[in-house]
């Protein structure tokens, strides 16, 4: 007979599709600097997922082109030269000309939880010099916790509910298959399936050879398993960092902070805050916005503030000192003070003075990010009385250029927990975050 009904085969397609998705994730990792500097992420900050365009992965091969030509092809239909035959919206306002690092086909938009992005970008990072303080300062191991489900694992972790669900699905699909295959009624097919112990081929044989001996007066579904169906619980060591820490996040919101500068500063702080929330249970974050005067504000106000006027940075440091004295004694708190400004300061002398006070208190770290975008209307050359150079001189900091991190400049010293980072472009956001959160800095 030339027409045959073939037996079903395993599902290779799904497994290989999963691997493709994994590869897409790897590709996302490579594009993180570009993805996280996307403004729309931090403006939709209430959301838990980020929409990002990703491409399906292509096998690299020699192909004609320069990599930036306009797409083109052949078509058929009405119209003459210059007529528009169609339109396509680009995902997330992305630029089509932007060449990727990896060969890939068309962009599609996919959703990724912010949590997952943070995990990808800030692996192995953490607060530097985090110390055990007086109280509640121990790391408690809580044993193991269930973290999702996976398709492979050990028997004791078999998740019987999830597995059973797959098994039931299979039962019904087998039953329907037998019915359509043999044109027998449901009950007969059920009996055969029961007798064969859920083995489809055998059940089919039983019906065809009229050998059903199982007795039943109604269909009683039972789960049928194949290895593919088994769902195991994934476990993860459950550790909670209980060291207490406070982050004092300070941002310059004066008139000289143009749109791009403000964006770079808030983007840095936004990701830092998200990271800390994700990683530490016991972290308090306080927000100080300043121009010529400084105010302690809520997170919402902090990121939403539009201000103008001149700049006196010392007011922010003064406020930080006050906060520490009144609420966060260094004996029982790990203290991190992070400040982002464009470096324009009316009274650098006073700022240095306040910073000295802060360091004398024994804070764990002071991080300063100077925002100096190379492009944009708000750009101006570095001036000798900007905070960057003032800090450099007063605290004998060493200037370093990080070749691996888009040539970003930083200043550090072994003597003091003071770190300065010069942020000149969107590409610097990720390396700057990594610099701020280098766990082993100042480690003795």
């Amino acid at each position, binding site marked *: *007979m*030339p*027409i*045959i*009904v*073939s037996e*079903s*085969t395993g*599902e*290779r*397609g799904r*497994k*290989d*599709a*999963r*691997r*493709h998705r*994994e*590869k897409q994730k790897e590709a996302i990792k490579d594009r993180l600097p570009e993805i996280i500097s996307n403004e729309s992420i931090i403006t939709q900050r209430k959301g838990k997922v980020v929409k990002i365009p990703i491409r*399906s*992965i*292509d*096998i*690299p*091969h*020699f*192909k*004609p*082109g*320069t*990599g930036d030509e*306009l*797409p*083109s*092809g*052949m*078509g*058929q*239909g*009405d*119209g*003459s*030269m*210059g*007529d*528009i*035959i169609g*339109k*396509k*919206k*680009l995902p997330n306002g992305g*630029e*089509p000309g932007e060449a*990727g*690092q*990896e*060969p890939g086909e068309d962009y599609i938009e996919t959703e990724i939880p912010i949590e997952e992005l943070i995990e990808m970008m800030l692996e192995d990072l953490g607060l530097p010099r985090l110390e055990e303080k007086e109280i509640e300062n121990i790391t408690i191991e809580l044993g193991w916790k269930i973290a999702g489900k996976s398709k492979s694992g050990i028997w004791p972790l078999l998740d019987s509910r999830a597995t059973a669900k797959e098994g039931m699905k299979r039962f019904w699909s087998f039953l329907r298959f037998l019915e*359509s295959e*043999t*044109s027998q009624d449901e009950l007969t097919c059920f009996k055969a399936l029961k007798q064969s112990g859920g083995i489809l081929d055998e059940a089919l044989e039983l019906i065809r050879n009229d050998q059903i001996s199982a007795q039943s007066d109604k269909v009683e579904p039972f789960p049928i398993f194949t290895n593919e169906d088994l769902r195991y619980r994934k476990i993860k060591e459950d550790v909670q960092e209980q060291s207490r820490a406070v982050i004092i996040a300070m941002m310059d919101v004066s008139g000289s902070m143009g749109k791009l500068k403000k964006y770079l500063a808030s983007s840095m702080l936004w990701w830092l805050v998200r990271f800390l929330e994700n990683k530490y249970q016991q972290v308090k974050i306080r927000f100080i916005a300043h121009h010529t005067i400084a105010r302690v504000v809520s997170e919402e106000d902090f990121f939403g503030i539009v201000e103008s006027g001149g700049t006196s940075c010392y007011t922010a440091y003064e406020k930080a000192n006050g906060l520490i004295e009144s609420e966060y004694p260094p004996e029982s708190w790990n203290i991190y003070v992070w400040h982002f400004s464009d470096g324009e300061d009316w009274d650098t002398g006073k700022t240095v003075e306040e910073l000295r006070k802060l360091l004398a208190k024994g804070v764990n770290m002071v991080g300063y990010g100077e925002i100096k975008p190379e492009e944009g209307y708000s750009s101006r050359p570095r001036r000798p009385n900007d905070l960057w150079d003032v800090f450099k001189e007063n605290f004998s900091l060493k200037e370093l250029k990080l070749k691996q991190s888009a040539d970003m400049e930083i200043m550090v010293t072994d003597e003091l927990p003071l770190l300065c980072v010069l942020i000149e472009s969107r590409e610097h956001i990720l390396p700057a975050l990594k610099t701020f959160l280098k766990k082993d800095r100042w480690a003795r």
Partner: protein
Amino acid sequence: MTKQELRRLDEIENRVREIAIEWGLLTTETIFEVVTAQRVLEGMAYEFPTNFSHWSFGRDYEKYRTIYENTGRGIPYEQVWNFDVPRAFLVETNPLALNAMVIAHVYGHVDFFLGSRYLQHGRSMSYVAEEARNAAARFAKYEEKYGEKAVERIIDAGMSIRWHQHPDPFFEEQDEETVREQLLALERAKLERFRDLKSEFKKKETQKEIEKAERRLEWLASKTPPEPTYDILNYITKKSPKPLKPWMVDVLTVIRNQSRALSPNRRTKMLDEGWATYWHVRIMRRLFEEKMLTEKEHGVFNDFHSGVTHENKRQFNWYRIGLVLLEDVEERWNKGRFGREYDQERNHAKRLSWDTNVGLGRQKIFEIRSFYSDRMAVEEFFTDDFIREQKLYIWVGVPDGNEIIYVIGEDDPEEIRKELKALMSTYGIPIVKVENGNHNQNGHLYLKHIFTGSDLDPTYRNATLANIFQLWGRKVLLETMVDRKDTLVACEMEGKQVKIKTEK
């Protein structure tokens, strides 16, 4: 599918074969397998009924499945392999009229497989399907033993250069030593001739020629490959100094064999699909006349048929274009609209009513089926009239803010023909040859890109070189053009990283 339906389909299949034979189509035993839609989607993605695991197949599978499940379009109807015993899929959930159409369509394909000189060749490769099935199990063992990542890296690298074969699909690659012996014999014969001349003339130039030939002999004795080769994957598999482990050689050999078996299909895609569509239309018409299928089923068939042959604004629908091309040729040859007299007739009205009643149409299209590749068909039958009637054009996508706007950029028949011919001579695969496998006497691999008007996409180029480096293990060089300048791109290990360097 119920038993009754299966029985009906069996009758239809029998009748379709009888009709096909009556009309002079070649037939052979053909297996139709009733399967799930998923199975067909897998078959489409994996290129063979069963094949080894790879993420690129998974990606395509998911793409097809998404289209199928979410849009209801892209119903997988037709999947037939050019094997010794051709094998086709019928989807159990497809309506009967559609499955009947698929059977008729497949009979068209089977005739093409048996009659086209390109695909006759492909048939001799049908062992590759068996090999693919066995490879699936073998590669899974390799994954267990050497790790999934390690196997994936080799498959990735092999797939990267899989289409770089000899441009002539009939060319049988010879063993390197055989080629070397042939070249050496030629050179020796030349030398003999010079030696004779020397005794007579003892000219200085002759002496020079002799030295040149002697040098070449010496060079040829150790040169690898003795002659530049297009079959990059084959060369690397056999000659890599890495050296490749037996399982890697196995993986690469399977990939090469599959690509060799599949590539003749690319040369006749338009004609093959056009031919099968041409015949399914006629066979189905007969089945309806003979009441093998009902009125209602006629409607179902019409829907699917017009779906298959619709005009596509941004893509060439080869089913449609192949079909109309064959019908156009059949009409022209029936009415004698060919030859010098017709070509020189400039009177439009006369051309339109031209009919000499020679009735050579069928004969002509059978000739096309037997001897033509797509490229030849375009050259000969894509006349200005045909291109205009079919409203063919080239579009460009112009970015505009958040959108891409697709605009007709060219509708000159001459340009369209040129573009199509270019497309059909290389199939988008640039010509790259292995020049030297022992470059700098250091085991470096020297590749040469034959420039035919376009640079190589740099991102893809570099990633491909990195993949070749995976297999070769030593420096890989590529001579190419960048912005009209000769450029040498090198790929080698620096520290622990693979580095690409460009020299102008």
